[in-house]
């Protein structure tokens, strides 16, 4: 019965059967056509394909870590300290005899989780703030945008460090700190879009038929900004992962024994001269992941930008 649900619960004697797929397709026909077009465009863009492949690979690795990882990521085994790559340990072991491949795989879960959570929090709050600010305009807009400017005027890493240090070192606090820093990026962009959308005729029509400001923001302004938020979110994911890893590197993010990439590099750098593999593998994974999100985000922006479309 997949694809079907019962509509109008308990109202009539005969439940009305609706095929949700059909209904969805009808309602969002334009968006679906647009999406298909986008996917085709992206498919023709080699960097988009490469970026997507990297992201998909990382996500798959993160999801499958408990199944695929050969060892326990936090169980120490002092007899196997600092073994070079090879044999049972493809990426070698760390100073407590833990398998680095395993820790890198589990690290992907943490880094991607941080990235997604931060983008959801920052994107959600930022979009709402930006849309309201842009739609209401005038003094409210000025006030909000000045606050955002103040936040933006700090280098993101420095501000995130200060916040994380003030909140106390833990992974959740690091997430909050990074999310806070990222809010203005979304807010500024969405505000710009909101200013444009606000002038459209359908907004005037909605207002004429008695819709309130918040209703309009929610039903018209925000949906129209969604695609840009997604692009920006993808681009920012890479930066987020990097900042979160940096926070962990200086001890403000993930706490031991959490297998976080930045934290692994932080300890691994002490052994870099003799045990190159310790800091190198988590470093390579940060690099590849961030590049993956960046090139995919760039390609996505190109595809969505109407000026570039042929």
């Amino acid at each position, binding site marked *: 019965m997949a694809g079907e649900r019962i509509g109008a619960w308990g109202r009539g004697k005969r439940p009305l059967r609706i095929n949700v797929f059909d209904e969805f397709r009808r309602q969002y026909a334009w968006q679906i056509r647009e999406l298909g077009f986008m996917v085709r465009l992206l498919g023709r863009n080699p960097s988009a394909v490469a970026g997507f492949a990297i992201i998909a690979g990382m996500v798959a690795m993160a999801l499958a870590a408990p199944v695929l990882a050969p060892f326990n990521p936090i169980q120490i085994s002092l007899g196997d300290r600092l073994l070079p790559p090879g044999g049972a340990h493809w990426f070698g072991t760390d100073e407590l005899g833990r398998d680095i491949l395993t820790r890198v795989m589990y690290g992907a879960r943490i880094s991607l989780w941080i990235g997604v959570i931060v983008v959801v929090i920052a994107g959600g709050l930022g979009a709402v703030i930006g849309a309201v600010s842009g739609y209401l305009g005038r003094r409210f807009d000025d006030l909000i945008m000045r606050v955002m400017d103040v936040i933006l005027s700090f280098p993101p890493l420095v501000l995130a460090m200060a916040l994380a240090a003030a909140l106390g070192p833990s992974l959740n606090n690091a997430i909050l700190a990074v999310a806070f820093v990222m809010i203005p990026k979304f807010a500024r962009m969405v505000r710009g879009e909101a200013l444009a959308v606000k002038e459209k005729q359908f907004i005037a029509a909605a207002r004429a038929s008695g819709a309130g400001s918040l209703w309009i923001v929610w039903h018209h302004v925000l949906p129209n900004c969604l695609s840009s938020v997604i692009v920006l979110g993808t681009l920012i994911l890479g930066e987020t992962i990097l900042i979160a890893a940096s926070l962990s590197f200086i001890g403000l993010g993930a706490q031991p024994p959490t297998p976080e990439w930045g934290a692994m590099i932080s300890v691994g750098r002490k052994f870099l001269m*003799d045990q190159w593999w310790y800091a190198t593998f988590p470093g390579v994974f940060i690099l590849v992941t961030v590049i993956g999100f960046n090139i995919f985000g760039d390609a996505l922006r190109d595809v969505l930008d109407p000026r570039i479309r042929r």
Partner: protein
Amino acid sequence: MKTMTMRWAVGILFAVLAAAVPGLAADKETLVVGVSSDVHTLDPAVSSDNYDWRQIYPAYDRLVKYKVVNGEGSTEVEPMAAESWTVSPDSLVWTFKIRKGIKFDDGTPLDAKAVTFSFERVLKIGKGPADNIGAIKTVEAVDDTTVKITLKSAFGPFLQTLATDAASIVNPAVMKHEKNGDLAQAWLAQNMDGSGPFKMTEWSRGERFVLSAKDNYWGAKPALKRVIIRFMRESSDQRMALESGDIDIAEGILIDQIPALEKNPNIVVRRFPSQLVEYVYINCQNPKLQNKLVRQALNTAVDYPGIITHVLRGNGVQMRGPVPKGMWGHKADVFQFQRNVAKGKELLKQAGAEKLDLTLIYSERRPSWEQIAAILQSNFADIGVNLKLELMANPTLREKVDRGDFELCLGAWSPDYADPSMFMNFWFDSNNFGLPGNRSRYKNEQVDGLVRKALALSDVAQRVALYNQAQEIIMQDAPYILLYQTQTIVPMRAWVKGYVYNPMLESMYNFESISKQ
């Protein structure tokens, strides 16, 4: 505009050239020592930390000093600021004759008054150093060059205690810096005023500490003009700097990196059997840790052989009782904890503390501590204790230890004179809470009685018997996790000559007799 640009260009060129010239360590009159953490305080009446004493000790004179025998430090003493001394038949009254002509930097003479002032100041302030010279009952200046010291009871290593940092002779003129009756503590925490061969010329927090030799020192003139102590947190930084010749001695290098250094012909790795022990303070006043079953459980969880074989690479032995091997009073058959996860769980169950969250604080004072902390975390997890690790700067950590504001903390200890009281009384007497020595804030009246009685006696056999009795109780109460006694490893450039190691002066250097060739 053009000339300005030229000037800049020339300036930058010079800067680049200057950077390319080999570092200060190439200078034969400057010794550079790389160490892991910054200095906490410079007041000899306050500091109980060998890492502070490293700087304080060479800036002051003491009545006596440890003798160097065949290039090795010994526990015998020889005259320094005191020319000679006599002792009453009952060993209670000591009379010192002070060398004439020793002056502080401002011209104040080092005389009997300066000695009385310094010792009374230490005793009045009553911090850790007061225990070092705790045998003293009264100090009297008989005349300008004669000091009479009366002891509470005859104390075998009394002369040795006068060679410790606590017995440093401070210029009485520091009292002009006194504020609110602090006996100039605030000033002496950041300054030094001694008659020793070196004086402080720079202290950039977190960066470096510079000692300069005095031209007019009364004793043998040091070969070195300057000693730079560089604070370098990273073991690998120290190693690179040592290999490139930017530093002469590296104190904080991970044992894992020692084998690679030993292959370098320009570097000599010196190893000395030491009495340095590393251990975990368990705050006995903390409600979670008041129950001795919990403390026993923590002791039972630790993988001692794993740490020693792998992290220390065999450069250490598990401690047996609080008194280390090599010190008299070491009890070779006292109870020793072994890793036993099932027993640890059982003990926690008995204590009704199956779910326990604890925090361990540690600093980067010793490069291996990060690993030890991670191992403890994992070992404790095995018995169901969730351990949070908190890394902090060493000075911050010491403040917390002094206030008792911690649950578990990693620490190191080494004796300053050859007497088991350095362990038994400092660690367990409940009058010594905090930095002075009883860092676990352990209080057991029976133990208090035994160690105090042992300290007041002079008969070695009787003292050993009392300390043995106390050790049995202590190992049941388990106020510390006694990890290991380690070897001291000092890697240095081969051109450093005359370095003398003394287990009583751990991490302290004989800068006055070191030279470079």
